[in-house]
Protein backbone atom coordinates (compact mmCIF):
# COMPACT_ATOMS: atom_id res chain seq x y z
CA UNK A 1 0.00 0.00 0.00
CA UNK A 2 1.32 3.42 -0.85
CA UNK A 3 1.75 6.08 1.79
CA UNK A 4 -1.19 8.59 1.70
CA UNK A 5 1.31 11.41 1.19
CA UNK A 6 2.48 9.80 -2.07
CA UNK A 7 -0.69 10.82 -4.01
CA UNK A 8 -0.31 14.38 -2.73
CA UNK A 9 3.34 14.48 -3.83
CA UNK A 10 2.36 13.14 -7.30
CA UNK A 11 -0.21 15.92 -7.70
CA UNK A 12 2.30 18.61 -6.70
CA UNK A 13 5.00 17.22 -9.04
CA UNK A 14 2.60 16.89 -11.96
CA UNK A 15 1.33 20.44 -11.35
CA UNK A 16 4.92 21.73 -11.30
CA UNK A 17 5.57 19.88 -14.54
CA UNK A 18 2.45 21.49 -16.05
CA UNK A 19 3.59 24.97 -14.97
CA UNK A 20 7.06 24.35 -16.41
CA UNK A 21 5.55 23.14 -19.70
CA UNK A 22 3.36 26.26 -19.92
CA UNK A 23 6.22 28.64 -19.11
CA UNK A 24 6.86 30.78 -22.21
CA UNK A 25 10.62 30.28 -22.39
CA UNK A 26 10.95 31.50 -25.97
CA UNK A 27 8.82 34.56 -25.27
CA UNK A 28 10.78 35.47 -22.18
CA UNK A 29 14.04 34.88 -24.03
CA UNK A 30 12.87 37.36 -26.69
CA UNK A 31 12.00 39.85 -23.93
CA UNK A 32 15.45 39.33 -22.38
CA UNK A 33 17.18 39.97 -25.70
CA UNK A 34 15.05 43.12 -26.19
CA UNK A 35 16.05 44.41 -22.72
CA UNK A 36 19.77 43.82 -23.36
CA UNK A 37 19.63 45.34 -26.86
CA UNK A 38 17.70 48.43 -25.65
CA UNK A 39 20.17 49.04 -22.81
CA UNK A 40 23.12 48.57 -25.20
CA UNK A 41 21.60 50.93 -27.76
CA UNK A 42 20.87 53.60 -25.12
CA UNK A 43 24.39 53.20 -23.73
CA UNK A 44 25.81 53.71 -27.20
CA UNK A 45 23.54 56.73 -27.74
CA UNK A 46 24.79 58.18 -24.47
CA UNK A 47 28.42 58.03 -25.57
CA UNK A 48 27.75 59.19 -29.14
CA UNK A 49 25.10 61.87 -28.55
CA UNK A 50 23.93 62.59 -25.00
CA UNK A 51 27.32 63.06 -23.35
CA UNK A 52 28.63 65.44 -26.04
CA UNK A 53 29.31 69.05 -25.06
CA UNK A 54 27.03 70.36 -27.82
CA UNK A 55 23.99 68.33 -26.66
CA UNK A 56 24.45 69.23 -23.00
CA UNK A 57 24.96 72.91 -23.76
CA UNK A 58 21.86 73.05 -25.98
CA UNK A 59 19.72 71.25 -23.40
CA UNK A 60 20.92 73.57 -20.62
CA UNK A 61 20.18 76.65 -22.75
CA UNK A 62 16.67 75.38 -23.52
CA UNK A 63 15.96 74.78 -19.81
CA UNK A 64 17.23 78.24 -18.87
CA UNK A 65 15.24 79.90 -21.67
CA UNK A 66 12.05 78.05 -20.70
CA UNK A 67 12.44 79.27 -17.10
CA UNK A 68 12.94 82.80 -18.43
CA UNK A 69 9.81 82.47 -20.57
CA UNK A 70 7.80 81.36 -17.51
CA UNK A 71 9.10 84.30 -15.47
CA UNK A 72 8.41 86.81 -18.29
CA UNK A 73 4.84 85.53 -18.70
CA UNK A 74 4.21 86.08 -14.98
CA UNK A 75 5.69 89.59 -15.21
CA UNK A 76 3.57 90.34 -18.29
CA UNK A 77 0.40 89.29 -16.51
CA UNK A 78 1.19 91.74 -13.65
CA UNK A 79 2.07 94.71 -15.92
CA UNK A 80 -0.18 97.50 -17.28
CA UNK A 81 -1.22 97.01 -20.92
CA UNK A 82 0.74 100.14 -21.87
CA UNK A 83 4.04 98.75 -20.55
CA UNK A 84 3.64 95.26 -22.02
CA UNK A 85 5.04 95.94 -25.52
CA UNK A 86 8.76 95.79 -24.64
CA UNK A 87 8.38 92.68 -22.47
CA UNK A 88 6.25 91.05 -25.20
CA UNK A 89 9.00 91.73 -27.73
CA UNK A 90 11.61 90.20 -25.43
CA UNK A 91 9.36 87.16 -24.87
CA UNK A 92 8.89 86.65 -28.63
CA UNK A 93 12.66 86.89 -29.17
CA UNK A 94 13.40 84.26 -26.50
CA UNK A 95 10.65 81.95 -27.82
CA UNK A 96 12.12 82.24 -31.33
CA UNK A 97 15.56 81.25 -29.95
CA UNK A 98 14.04 78.29 -28.06
CA UNK A 99 12.27 77.01 -31.20
CA UNK A 100 15.63 77.08 -33.04
CA UNK A 101 17.39 75.26 -30.17
CA UNK A 102 14.59 72.65 -30.05
CA UNK A 103 15.17 71.97 -33.75
CA UNK A 104 18.94 71.55 -33.19
CA UNK A 105 18.31 69.16 -30.29
CA UNK A 106 15.87 67.13 -32.41
CA UNK A 107 18.51 66.87 -35.17
CA UNK A 108 21.08 65.53 -32.65
CA UNK A 109 18.45 63.16 -31.22
CA UNK A 110 17.71 61.78 -34.70
CA UNK A 111 21.29 60.41 -34.87
CA UNK A 112 20.60 58.34 -31.74
CA UNK A 113 17.24 57.15 -33.16
CA UNK A 114 18.94 55.98 -36.36
CA UNK A 115 21.65 54.12 -34.42
CA UNK A 116 19.01 52.40 -32.26
CA UNK A 117 17.01 51.41 -35.35
CA UNK A 118 20.09 49.87 -37.01
CA UNK A 119 20.97 47.86 -33.87
CA UNK A 120 17.34 46.68 -33.53
CA UNK A 121 17.27 45.57 -37.17
CA UNK A 122 20.51 43.58 -36.88
CA UNK A 123 19.29 41.83 -33.72
CA UNK A 124 15.88 41.20 -35.30
CA UNK A 125 17.51 39.48 -38.29
CA UNK A 126 19.63 37.34 -35.94
CA UNK A 127 16.60 36.36 -33.85
CA UNK A 128 14.54 35.56 -36.97
CA UNK A 129 17.26 33.18 -38.13
CA UNK A 130 17.58 31.56 -34.70
CA UNK A 131 13.80 31.17 -34.21
CA UNK A 132 12.91 30.36 -37.81
CA UNK A 133 9.68 28.34 -37.93
CA UNK A 134 9.19 28.57 -34.13
CA UNK A 135 6.15 30.30 -32.65
CA UNK A 136 7.52 32.05 -29.57
CA UNK A 137 4.08 32.83 -28.10
CA UNK A 138 0.35 32.50 -28.66
CA UNK A 139 -1.61 35.64 -29.45
CA UNK A 140 -4.88 36.12 -27.52
CA UNK A 141 -6.40 37.82 -30.57
CA UNK A 142 -6.32 37.38 -34.34
CA UNK A 143 -4.37 40.36 -35.72
CA UNK A 144 -5.48 42.45 -38.69
CA UNK A 145 -4.38 41.22 -42.09
CA UNK A 146 -1.59 43.74 -42.59
CA UNK A 147 -0.18 42.88 -39.15
CA UNK A 148 -0.13 39.11 -39.80
CA UNK A 149 2.64 39.79 -42.35
CA UNK A 150 4.81 40.59 -39.31
CA UNK A 151 3.17 38.48 -36.61
CA UNK A 152 3.19 35.29 -38.73
CA UNK A 153 6.54 35.98 -40.39
CA UNK A 154 8.62 32.86 -40.92
CA UNK A 155 5.93 30.57 -39.49
CA UNK A 156 4.12 27.75 -41.24
CA UNK A 157 0.46 26.86 -40.99
CA UNK A 158 -2.74 28.88 -41.00
CA UNK A 159 -3.09 29.57 -37.30
CA UNK A 160 -2.77 33.35 -37.21
CA UNK A 161 -2.62 33.26 -33.43
CA UNK A 162 0.94 31.94 -33.61
CA UNK A 163 3.31 34.78 -32.78
CA UNK A 164 6.65 35.12 -34.52
CA UNK A 165 9.76 36.43 -32.82
CA UNK A 166 9.76 39.53 -35.05
CA UNK A 167 6.38 40.78 -33.79
CA UNK A 168 7.13 40.11 -30.12
CA UNK A 169 10.59 41.68 -30.38
CA UNK A 170 9.14 44.77 -32.07
CA UNK A 171 6.53 45.17 -29.31
CA UNK A 172 9.15 44.70 -26.59
CA UNK A 173 11.41 47.32 -28.19
CA UNK A 174 8.52 49.81 -28.56
CA UNK A 175 7.67 49.34 -24.89
CA UNK A 176 11.19 49.37 -23.53
CA UNK A 177 12.79 52.20 -25.50
CA UNK A 178 10.52 54.96 -24.21
CA UNK A 179 10.57 53.65 -20.65
CA UNK A 180 14.34 53.12 -20.49
CA UNK A 181 14.94 56.61 -21.91
CA UNK A 182 12.61 58.13 -19.32
CA UNK A 183 14.04 56.08 -16.46
CA UNK A 184 17.64 57.02 -17.32
CA UNK A 185 16.77 60.68 -17.94
CA UNK A 186 17.72 60.61 -21.64
CA UNK A 187 14.25 61.51 -22.91
CA UNK A 188 14.37 64.85 -24.74
CA UNK A 189 12.34 67.67 -23.14
CA UNK A 190 9.09 68.67 -24.79
CA UNK A 191 9.63 71.40 -27.38
CA UNK A 192 8.01 74.83 -26.96
CA UNK A 193 5.61 74.14 -29.83
CA UNK A 194 4.52 70.88 -28.19
CA UNK A 195 3.94 72.69 -24.87
CA UNK A 196 1.82 75.36 -26.60
CA UNK A 197 -0.19 72.64 -28.40
CA UNK A 198 -0.71 70.79 -25.09
CA UNK A 199 -1.94 74.00 -23.41
CA UNK A 200 -4.34 74.64 -26.29
CA UNK A 201 -5.66 71.06 -26.05
CA UNK A 202 -6.16 71.41 -22.27
CA UNK A 203 -8.08 74.69 -22.76
CA UNK A 204 -10.25 72.96 -25.39
CA UNK A 205 -11.00 70.05 -23.01
CA UNK A 206 -11.89 72.49 -20.25
CA UNK A 207 -14.15 74.52 -22.56
CA UNK A 208 -16.08 71.35 -23.45
CA UNK A 209 -16.33 70.38 -19.74
CA UNK A 210 -14.45 67.15 -20.41
CA UNK A 211 -12.13 67.71 -17.44
Amino acid sequence: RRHPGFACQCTITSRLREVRAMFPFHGLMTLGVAIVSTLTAEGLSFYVVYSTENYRKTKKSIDASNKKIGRLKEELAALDPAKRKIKQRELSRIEHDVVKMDRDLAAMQSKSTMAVAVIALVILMTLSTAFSGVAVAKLPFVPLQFITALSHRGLEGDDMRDCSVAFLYMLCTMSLRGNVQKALGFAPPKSLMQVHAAQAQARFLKSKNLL
Partner: protein
Amino acid sequence: TSVASMAAAQAPDRTVMQKFFSPLVTDKWQTAELSEAVHWSRQFVGLVTGVVWGIIPMRGTLGLVLFFVINVSAIPMMMSAKINIDMEQLGEAMSFEMSKEGFIASFATFLVAWILSYTAFQA
Protein backbone atom coordinates in the same frame (compact mmCIF):
# COMPACT_ATOMS: atom_id res chain seq x y z
CA THR B 1 7.44 82.99 10.06
CA SER B 2 10.80 84.27 8.79
CA VAL B 3 12.49 81.09 10.05
CA ALA B 4 9.76 78.96 8.44
CA SER B 5 10.04 80.80 5.10
CA MET B 6 13.86 80.48 5.18
CA ALA B 7 13.50 76.76 5.87
CA ALA B 8 11.00 76.42 3.02
CA ALA B 9 13.30 78.33 0.67
CA GLN B 10 16.24 76.08 1.58
CA ALA B 11 14.24 72.80 1.50
CA PRO B 12 15.27 70.70 -1.55
CA ASP B 13 12.67 70.02 -4.26
CA ARG B 14 11.00 66.68 -3.75
CA THR B 15 11.26 64.15 -6.56
CA VAL B 16 8.25 63.05 -8.60
CA MET B 17 8.17 59.66 -6.83
CA GLN B 18 8.27 61.31 -3.39
CA LYS B 19 5.48 63.73 -4.31
CA PHE B 20 3.35 60.89 -5.74
CA PHE B 21 3.76 58.26 -3.04
CA SER B 22 3.93 60.59 -0.02
CA PRO B 23 1.93 63.64 -1.12
CA LEU B 24 2.00 66.77 1.02
CA VAL B 25 -0.43 69.66 0.94
CA THR B 26 2.49 72.02 0.25
CA ASP B 27 3.61 70.14 -2.90
CA LYS B 28 3.58 72.12 -6.13
CA TRP B 29 3.55 70.12 -9.37
CA GLN B 30 5.24 71.34 -12.56
CA THR B 31 3.55 70.18 -15.78
CA ALA B 32 6.65 68.18 -16.75
CA GLU B 33 6.58 66.35 -13.39
CA LEU B 34 2.87 65.65 -13.75
CA SER B 35 3.50 64.35 -17.27
CA GLU B 36 6.12 61.95 -15.88
CA ALA B 37 3.73 60.71 -13.16
CA VAL B 38 1.04 60.15 -15.81
CA HIS B 39 3.54 58.26 -18.00
CA TRP B 40 4.54 55.81 -15.25
CA SER B 41 0.93 55.37 -14.11
CA ARG B 42 0.01 54.43 -17.69
CA GLN B 43 2.83 51.85 -17.83
CA PHE B 44 1.68 50.33 -14.54
CA VAL B 45 -1.96 50.16 -15.70
CA GLY B 46 -0.85 48.60 -19.02
CA LEU B 47 1.28 45.96 -17.27
CA VAL B 48 -1.36 45.00 -14.70
CA THR B 49 -4.17 44.95 -17.30
CA GLY B 50 -2.08 42.75 -19.61
CA VAL B 51 -1.28 40.21 -16.90
CA VAL B 52 -4.89 40.08 -15.66
CA TRP B 53 -6.23 39.75 -19.22
CA GLY B 54 -3.90 36.78 -19.74
CA ILE B 55 -5.03 35.03 -16.54
CA ILE B 56 -8.84 35.54 -16.92
CA PRO B 57 -8.47 34.90 -20.03
CA MET B 58 -9.64 37.80 -22.11
CA ARG B 59 -9.52 37.19 -25.87
CA GLY B 60 -10.05 39.14 -29.05
CA THR B 61 -10.85 42.75 -29.84
CA LEU B 62 -12.87 43.16 -26.61
CA GLY B 63 -9.63 42.97 -24.63
CA LEU B 64 -8.08 45.74 -26.72
CA VAL B 65 -11.16 47.96 -26.48
CA LEU B 66 -11.42 47.50 -22.71
CA PHE B 67 -7.74 48.36 -22.36
CA PHE B 68 -8.27 51.69 -24.15
CA VAL B 69 -11.29 52.47 -21.99
CA ILE B 70 -9.42 51.61 -18.78
CA ASN B 71 -6.33 53.56 -19.83
CA VAL B 72 -8.28 56.70 -20.65
CA SER B 73 -10.56 56.60 -17.61
CA ALA B 74 -8.36 55.14 -14.88
CA ILE B 75 -5.48 57.61 -15.13
CA PRO B 76 -7.40 60.80 -14.20
CA MET B 77 -9.14 58.92 -11.38
CA MET B 78 -5.82 57.59 -10.04
CA MET B 79 -4.13 60.97 -10.25
CA SER B 80 -6.94 62.97 -8.64
CA ALA B 81 -7.37 60.34 -5.91
CA LYS B 82 -3.65 60.21 -5.11
CA ILE B 83 -2.54 63.85 -5.37
CA ASN B 84 -4.13 67.26 -5.10
CA ILE B 85 -3.76 69.01 -8.48
CA ASP B 86 -5.39 71.52 -10.75
CA MET B 87 -7.50 69.70 -13.38
CA GLU B 88 -6.39 72.08 -16.14
CA GLN B 89 -2.77 71.22 -15.39
CA LEU B 90 -3.68 67.50 -15.46
CA GLY B 91 -5.49 68.05 -18.76
CA GLU B 92 -2.33 69.63 -20.17
CA ALA B 93 -0.18 66.71 -18.91
CA MET B 94 -2.63 64.20 -20.37
CA SER B 95 -3.19 65.99 -23.68
CA PHE B 96 -2.40 64.15 -26.89
CA GLU B 97 0.74 66.17 -27.51
CA MET B 98 2.28 65.45 -24.10
CA SER B 99 1.30 61.83 -23.65
CA LYS B 100 1.34 60.23 -27.11
CA GLU B 101 4.71 58.53 -26.54
CA GLY B 102 3.56 57.30 -23.13
CA PHE B 103 0.35 55.93 -24.60
CA ILE B 104 2.18 54.03 -27.36
CA ALA B 105 4.66 52.63 -24.81
CA SER B 106 1.83 51.60 -22.46
CA PHE B 107 -0.04 49.91 -25.33
CA ALA B 108 3.12 47.98 -26.25
CA THR B 109 3.68 47.07 -22.56
CA PHE B 110 0.08 45.89 -22.32
CA LEU B 111 0.39 43.75 -25.46
CA VAL B 112 3.66 42.14 -24.32
CA ALA B 113 2.22 41.39 -20.85
CA TRP B 114 -1.03 40.05 -22.34
CA ILE B 115 0.72 37.85 -24.92
CA LEU B 116 3.23 36.40 -22.43
CA SER B 117 0.71 35.78 -19.64
CA TYR B 118 -1.81 34.31 -22.11
CA THR B 119 0.89 31.99 -23.46
CA ALA B 120 1.88 31.02 -19.92
CA PHE B 121 -1.60 30.39 -18.52
CA GLN B 122 -3.76 29.41 -21.48
CA ALA B 123 -1.72 28.06 -24.39
